[in-house]
Structure formats: C-alpha cells, structure tokens
C-alpha cells in the first residue's frame, strides 16, 4: 500500500513539474522572445557542466579540472579556454597517444546534443601558474570561455585522485607549460 502511494505521489509530482516547466517556457516566450531563439542562445547558455572536480595538485603550480560538459543545444559549441582566481593561465588540453599533453588547437568542439568527458588521462581544463595550492575539500571557481566569447562559471571541489600521474608525466613539454 505504502509503496503504491509513493509511486502515485511521485508520478503526480513529475506531472506537475512538467506542467510547470511548460508554463515557464511559454511565459518566457511571451516576455522575452528575442532571448528564446536558438540563433540567439550563446554557447555558454546551451552547456551544462556536471560532476566537476579539480585534482589536488601533484605537481607544483598546476592541476586539472575534470567533469562532464553537455551541449544541450542544437548547434555545436567550442570550449576555448577560461580563467580562475587561483590560476594565472587556463587552457583546454588533450593528451596525445604518447601520453603528452598539449593545448587543443582551435578548442574542444562539442557537437549538438553530445557530452564531452574531461577526465584524468584525457581531455581536461588545465589550470597553470597557480597562486595557491588548493587543498582537498576546498572549492575552486573556474570560468569557462567559449568561442563566441560567452562564459560559464563552474565551482568544483578539490579531490585527490589515485594514479592521476598517468596524465602528468613529467616531460619537458609539461614543465614548459607550467612556466
């Protein structure tokens, strides 16, 4: 009995939520039509970032931010860089087949409806020239910058990651980047 009641309540809640969203969308249309067309939406507007975290630095002066960047829009978005209070330089990096990391030329392209995974050993947002060393449990704010100039602020907790060294091979290129 209990179980059934709970289900019903949940379904109803979901239904009301759906109605509420529709109403919101409609009113949005009526009051601010210019902001509601896809053509006008900025890249930042159509992006959702989840599960963001910053790795506890294991090398002096630099670390990475990871997470999921979902393009919820109809057009591709391109992440080109960013900024942060704690970093002098923020770049979008990839890791080559040889395990070296480098700036992604032209930025990270995320097709419409796709999600880019930023992960240790793969693509990441590189925070360089750190002014402080963020400690585990602290929150770091990073402003992501897209190709059209739009920006998105992301707050990410600092976590330690095991085996993170795979993407931070101390190679010449890497230490150059840090400087």
């Amino acid at each position, binding site marked *: 009995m209990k179980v*059934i009641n709970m289900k019903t309540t949940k379904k109803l809640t979901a239904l009301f939520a759906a109605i509420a969203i529709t109403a919101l969308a409609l009113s949005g249309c009526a009051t601010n039509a210019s902001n509601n067309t896809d053509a006008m939406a900025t890249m930042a507007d159509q992006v959702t970032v989840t599960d963001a975290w910053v790795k*506890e630095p294991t090398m002096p002066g630099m670390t990475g931010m990871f997470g999921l960047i979902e393009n919820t829009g109809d057009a591709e978005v391109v992440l080109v860089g960013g900024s942060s209070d704690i970093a002098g330089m923020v770049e979008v990096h990839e890791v080559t087949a040889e395990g070296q990391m480098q700036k992604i030329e032209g930025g990270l392209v995320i097709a419409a409806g796709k999600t880019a995974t930023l992960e240790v050993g793969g693509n990441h947002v590189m925070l360089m020239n750190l002014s402080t060393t963020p400690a585990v*449990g602290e929150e770091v704010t990073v402003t992501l910058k897209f190709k059209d100039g739009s920006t998105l602020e992301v707050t990410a907790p600092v*976590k*330690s990651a*095991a085996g993170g060294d795979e993407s931070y091979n101390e190679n010449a290129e890497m230490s150059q980047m840090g400087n």
Partner: protein
Amino acid sequence: MSPNDNTEQPTGEPLGASASDSARRVSRRHLLIGGAAAGAGAVAAVGIGAATGSLSSQSDSDNTGSPKNSKEYESAAKLFGEGTVSPYGKHQAGIVEPNPLQANIRYAAYDLLPSTDRNAIKRMLRVVTGDIERLTEGRGALADSEPELAEIPANLTITVGFGAELVRRVNPNLVPDWLAPLPAFTRDQLDASYSGGDLMLNIQADDPLTVAHAHRMLMRDLASFASIRWVQSGFRRAAGAEPAGTTMRNMMGQVDGTVNPDPEVDEFDGLVWETAKAGWLAGGSAFVLRRIDMLLDTWDKVARSAREETIGRDLPVGAPLTGTKETDPADFEAVNSLGLPVIPDFAHIRRARSTDPNERILRRGVNFEDNGKAGLLFACYQVNPLTQFVPIQQRLDELDLLNQWIVHVGSAVFAIPPGFKKGGFVGETLFG
C-alpha cells in the same frame, strides 16, 4: 532515519519487485500489511508468504511464457543490488535503517594527521559527505576511477563517528565526558591494533564489492587528512538468504539480537538518540565497538544442553529456556523440580538483563572471521556508554558462563553525529 523518511527510501522500485526485495523495504512489523497490487504479468508480493518463498507455488511450468521457477521470477524482478538508502535525515543511516540491516559490514578507524586542524576537518567532512551522497545513490564518487563498481549500491550506508581527538581539535569544550576509552574490565585482553581511533566509518551494504569500493574511495579522500588505524570486517547472512526480519545467528550458532530496543515500540530519544541536552550531538548517538574472540574449538566440545544454559536460551529457535518461541519473554523466576532456576544464575541473558529500563543498549553485533580467529564484532548504540554499556559489561565481566569461551580483544568508543540534510555535511553541528 526518522520514521517519516521511510517512504523516501529505497527509491525507484518498479512494480513486480521480487518478494524478498519488497519485504526488505517493509519493516518487520509491517510485513502483514505489506504487499503491492501489480500490473498485468507482474508478481504481487504479499507479506510473509511471499517473503518466505511461497512464490514457487505459482511457478509450475506453463505455456504462457511467464517465468517457470522462482529463480526466473527473481531475475525478472528488481535486484536487491539496486536498493538505495537515503543518507539524509535526523539520524545518520545505517543504525536503525535500513531494516533489516545489510549483510556486509566494515568498520574502519583513522588517526588524524598532526596537520589536520579545525579547518581541515571541516574540508575532510565535506569530502566524505560528497562521497556518501554519491555512492549511496549508486553513482561513482567524484574522481572515481572505477565508477562501474558504484553502480550496485546494494543498500549501501556509510555512518561516520568521531573520536575524542577529532572533537577536541574542532572545539575542546564539546568533548562529551564519555568519549574516552572505556574503564578496564578484569577479563579484557585488549590489543591496540583493534582499539581507539579519531574517526570511524561504518560501511554497510548487501554486496561485499560495494563495501570494498566505497571504502577505497573514502580512503583515498581521507589520505591527506588521516591515516588508517584499523579495519574490521563482519558479516551477517547474505541478503535474501532468509526471510526479512530473521534475527541473525552468531558464530556460536546462537540466535543473537532478540531482546533489543525497537524503534517502533520503544522511545529511542534519550535511550539511543541523544537529546537537546547533548548540544551538537542531539540526534546522534554514542557508539561502542568491542571485538570479541570466540574460542570455538572448546565451545564445540560443550554439550548442547550446557551451551543452551550458558545463554539461557535454546539453540534451535532462540527461545528462552522457560518458553518455546523466540519471542516468549524469559521467566527469570521459574524453577525446575529441584527448585533450581531454569535460567541459571550464570546465564548470559540473566546477567545482561537490567531492572533499570534506562540501562539498555541497541545491539548491532556482526560476525567476523579472519586471521584464524572468529567471533563477534559487538557493536551498540546508546546515549551514554558509562551508564548503559559499562554497567552491563561490569556484570558480565564479574559472572557470565559465556566468559569461558570468549575474550574481549578490541575496544573503541565514538560519538555518532546526527544526520544531515542535502547541502549540509556530516558533523556540521560541531562547528556551530
């Protein structure tokens, strides 16, 4: 979790959940009124009958394409591995919820690093809370390198406890007087490697891999704050192995956990849950863990009747020697034809029973078996160990025939902070 939270958990159960699964989420006392109407082709899980496997009566082969035996029913229905328990509420999860408790239990104690000060403790607890929230939902921890292992939450709960040193580093004025090593008992043979600790995690789930993975994630996050002191793992019967609500058996074969305060019958506030008097701990509890070795080789040589007299209860069903059913009240006045008490003076239940109703504890024992030893991880919750656990253990220490076959080898006391809400973190009241 407060009773109000019951409907919140576990989440997402489809209709036609397996019998054992449905029974799990209905507390033992509600079994008879439990049961769910089901859609076409789904199995209606109804009360005890379903829980004890009477589904097999519907399972004779037919040609309608429906499952042919109870195994197929099980696989067609929801798996217990999908079960989740909300970490939020007035009290931390893993103490009275879920009911029944999970099958695989791990206690892990940590020592804080010298550098872990008040601010670092706050950061540490936030990270731990983030892990608890995600893992108990069946999502990988942030930065989880094996997120697939988190996909089977199996009713995972992670309960956090604080040793005196942690509280002292946050605020020396907030250390409860009982948060210290217990007074020594004459028979104790304590081993430091199973005792003490500044921070305790109790990780419980119905799947051992879930427990191991959750602990690995937490251990990694704790690495910059604390070092591991000890880990003690225990187990009950596997989930679904017996009807929900069955009292567990310990390694001596006894039904263990019969006489225990019940949140649906007893007032837990002031007995198990700390009240407003306890300040930051209100809604929390005081936790005692005793590692007790069992000398099973000599116990096994004891005649069955003597084993039953040692406890004061029988072995087949755990009935008091003055009764026939597990739930029969023990009659401590009854005498046999020789005029001797039926439940002997040295019997464990006579010695453990107090006439003072405040001198009760919520027992949460589990079995352990490792390094060639077996025994009981005796765990209990109360508001004050000095007025609840200690007087009981003093009586047992003085006289209890069971002492011939058990040795207390580990001891630890932790303050269990209250539960927390979404957006908050475990132990936040300490920083108030």
